[in-house]
């Protein structure tokens, strides 16, 4: 063994011990003077933009060489355009990353013909979760408190929806499983519009993601014009649905379903719901490096996101903007990616079939 190889071995050993556990062995890349482009396949105005705008400046500080991190919006075709674009990109110097969302995952899971991308090719470096809360107007909530879900199963429910193939699939399927007669009113532009419809008394059932619930619905709950019903829940390390850490006092959909006649927490329908819930909420937003990214780059980004999570003020600054949810890196992110992009064939078939029968949606 020559001196140079010894020092190299030593250097590798040192870097390995410095680098994070999951991808030990990388050198890390230096991004000094470079500009990192973060592609978001949505417009400047959506939730993914909010998420990326939150992380971008932090990422810039945390990456070696403090590169400029710019968020680039590439909306179109329900986010499949931006994702297809990213699929075509080859790894170059680690200055290109991609932020996907539930709306990118769903068409992939459902076999939308526009999807030309493959999650398996990409390298995940961060997975951000969220949750969702369903709520009702006080009169219906009161009826239900007295007589259980069956007391409101005869009601005519109106729900403002963005489309049955979007994230709304999860609540729509949930309500159907509970035996509620919910008519979705399509054509709203965002969940905020759905909440407004609820506030105007036109819709009488709604759900919001956690951060929107905290900012938009919690004041209504306080004022007595809305009553929270259940959260969709969160996943524990073994993949079980447990109470949402942001709303520990709220029952999960699983608990509500268990208590309701005719709603099963096992079987194909349940598996399908759970699969799409996992794809849509606990692993909703992910950051990827393109196909063929070097181990060094993956290590560097993973370390950067871990550094962000380790910031003293992270809990404080993220709570308001992202909610109290796991921001997963390394192996955890891998697991999240797996559960969000691999849906059992029966579950997929069930949902595709259900969408066709119930809403006339064909994915051709």
């Amino acid at each position, binding site marked *: 063994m020559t001196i140079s190889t010894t020092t190299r071995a030593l250097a590798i050993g040192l870097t390995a011990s410095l680098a994070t556990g999951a991808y030990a062995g990388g050198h890390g890349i230096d991004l000094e003077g470079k500009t990192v482009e973060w592609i978001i396949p949505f417009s400047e105005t959506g939730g993914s933009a*909010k998420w990326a*705008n939150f992380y971008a400046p932090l990422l810039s500080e945390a990456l070696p060489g403090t590169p400029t991190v710019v968020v680039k919006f590439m909306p179109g075709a329900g986010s499949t355009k931006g994702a297809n674009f990213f699929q075509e990109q080859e790894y170059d110097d680690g200055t290109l990353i991609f932020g996907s969302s539930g709306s990118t995952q769903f068409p992939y899971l459902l076999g939308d013909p526009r999807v030309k991308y493959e999650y398996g090719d990409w390298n995940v470096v961060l997975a951000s979760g969220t949750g969702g809360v369903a709520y009702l107007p006080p009169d219906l909530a009161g009826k239900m408190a007295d007589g259980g879900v069956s007391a409101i199963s005869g009601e005519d429910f*109106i729900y403002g929806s963005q489309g049955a193939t979007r994230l709304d699939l999860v609540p729509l399927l949930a309500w159907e499983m509970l035996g509620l007669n919910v*008519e979705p009113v399509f*054509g709203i532009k965002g969940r905020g519009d759905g909440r*407004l*419809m609820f506030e105007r008394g036109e819709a009488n059932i709604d759900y919001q993601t956690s951060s929107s619930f905290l*900012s938009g619905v919690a004041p209504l709950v306080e004022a007595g014009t809305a009553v929270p019903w259940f959260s969709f829940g969160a996943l524990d390390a073994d993949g079980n649905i447990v109470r949402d850490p942001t709303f520990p006092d709220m029952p999960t959909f699983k608990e509500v379903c268990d208590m309701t006649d005719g709603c099963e927490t096992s079987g194909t329908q349940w598996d399908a719901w759970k699969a799409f819930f996992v794809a849509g909420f606990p692993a909703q937003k992910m950051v990827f490096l393109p196909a063929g990214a070097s181990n060094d780059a993956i290590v560097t980004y993973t370390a950067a996101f871990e550094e962000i999570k380790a910031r003293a003020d992270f809990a404080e*600054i993220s709570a308001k903007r992202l909610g109290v949810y796991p921001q997963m890196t390394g192996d955890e992110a891998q697991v999240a990616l797996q559960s969000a992009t691999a849906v059992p064939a029966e579950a997929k078939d069930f949902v595709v079939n259900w969408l066709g029968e119930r809403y006339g949606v064909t994915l051709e």
Partner: protein
Amino acid sequence: MDLITTALPALSDAFAMILQPHVIGYLVLGVCMGLAIGVFPGLGGIAGLSLLLPFMFGMEPLTGLALMVGMVAVVPTSDTFASVLMGIPGSSASQATVLDGFPMAKKGKAARALSAAFASSLFGGLLGAAFLTFFILAARPIVLLFKTPELLMITIFGLSMVGILAGRVAIKGIVAACLGLLVGTIGEGASAGALRMSTYDMPYLADGLKLVIVGLGIFAIPEIIALLRQDKAISDRAQLGGGWLEGVKDWWANKWLSVRCSLIGVMVGVIPGLGGSVVDWIAYGHTVQSAKDKENFGKGDVRGVIGPESSNNAKEGGGLVPTLLFGIPGSGSMAIFISGIALLGTGSIEVGPSMLKNNLDFTYAIVWLLALANVVGTLICIAASGGIAKLTSIRFALLAPFLFMIISFAAFQSRQDLMDLVALFSIGLLGILMRRFDWSRPAFLIGFVLSDPAETYANQAVQIANSRFRKGFGEGLEYVFSPIVIILIIITVTSVVVGLRQAKNIMAEGEVKSGSKRAPLIFLLAVLGYIIAAYWNAQLIPDYSSADRVFPVFVGTIGIIGGVILFVQMMLKPETHALFSDREAQEADINIFGLWPTLAWFAGLLALTAMFGFIIALAVFLLGFMTYRAGKSPVFAGIYTAAGISFICGMAWLLNRDFPAGWLQTAVDLPWPLK
């Protein structure tokens, strides 16, 4: 009510917050940036705010707000420059300003039109803020009264403005509006996701066309081409009208009009879901309807500038209500504004229902920062208007390539796809022909803008009403015919009846002589052909997606009936009739260049872009245009090209955007900006 007791202390807190030197400093900085971006047609608040966002993280809330509000507030002020001077709507808020502002500029009254516009903007902004200060406390319950049927009625009221802007032949205006509505339905339907006039093989169309492209195509390109063909300056006579003081006097003479239009602006802005893209048309319609002598509208009546400009700045204030009180952005720029606020400080300002309770002082600070930004912005604009107005006396061949560069860049921001440019060019061609044959372009644009809300609200209202009727007949009626709906129906019907009676006198786009029969007839048949195709295409939508079928079929039916009536009339009437208006005949003496050779330059830019990417294509285009069309020396052309390219690169770099790529870029890896 203890409104006053809560409002006054918060208001004085807000003023104490605003009136600090560093806050004012950031506000002025934001204003300057907003003015600089708003001046360029097609770029507005969204581009400007995205530029600021990276700096917002953790910034002190008040200074961050000052910067962002300064930026947003003045975009509708500075985009007036493009509308008045070039006839290009600077943003959706100044579309109606073009109708009278641009003719004024052509007559050499640019400075007067500009300062009247700015005075109106300022007044609108201030009145809006004053109104909001009190209204915002009571706004929540009032806004919640506007349910889907009410929103649908307002949309229909907006559509009724077509009646006034229809032009000499009312049916032509209606068919134009139908065409706009149908173009607005292109792509995936909002209700069931059925495709209209598009396929997934062309993903671009499946997403539908964006307003920025249609607005620029329908107004900007026809004007640029028309001016180029005449090869002279925009204003064919010396500057007159005494400059800016005259315009301020004009505003003062019409101050009550300005008050009314400002209030229209605030109120339409307050209602979530409509955005501001129609507010200027409603204000213009009101201006025309309430005027005693109408014959000058469309030919340079200063009131046609004062009305819409009073409304569009007031609208920004009104738009704060849905944004701050409900957390629902009224426009794209407001959506970014919300996400910017979330980044400020420790995220303590939470936009939404709790805003009034927890952050009333900040709410007021935002309202009055907006007003203050209007004052600062207007003063800067008035000061600059005399100088900038001189642009109208420059030979247009020197301006046109630059303008083309800017609007192509702006159009490309919509989807970052080469198809953006193709769409711009195609809509531009439609605009050129509509202008030539005197089909109302405003009617088309109103139709396009309101297509989506009209369809969505109609579908939703029907669905919800059905559910109400199932509960009980009375409950259903109560939902559909609320007092607000009934009032709106009365206003709309009155406006249509009065409007159609007056439309003959109002030539929103000036007078047009008639030419031969053949060309107008061919254009009619082409329009009718598209409408029939769209109708047929919609009929093919299967039953389970019927929600996406009803609207285009309904509009298509009206369009086809109108088109057939026009066709029959054309067969019967002599060729001197207004039906056969043809600008080619009228402008034959002043046009130096033909339409097609002029258009070929831009088609060339498009083709070159498809091959070599935008920057290389632009270099060739600018050099060629300056040398051969403008007849300048190679040295001049070289300098012009270099200046143009560096300008656009600087802009793209600042906004962090790419340029359209062509075939070359797929074959070879090139560095930015060529990539």
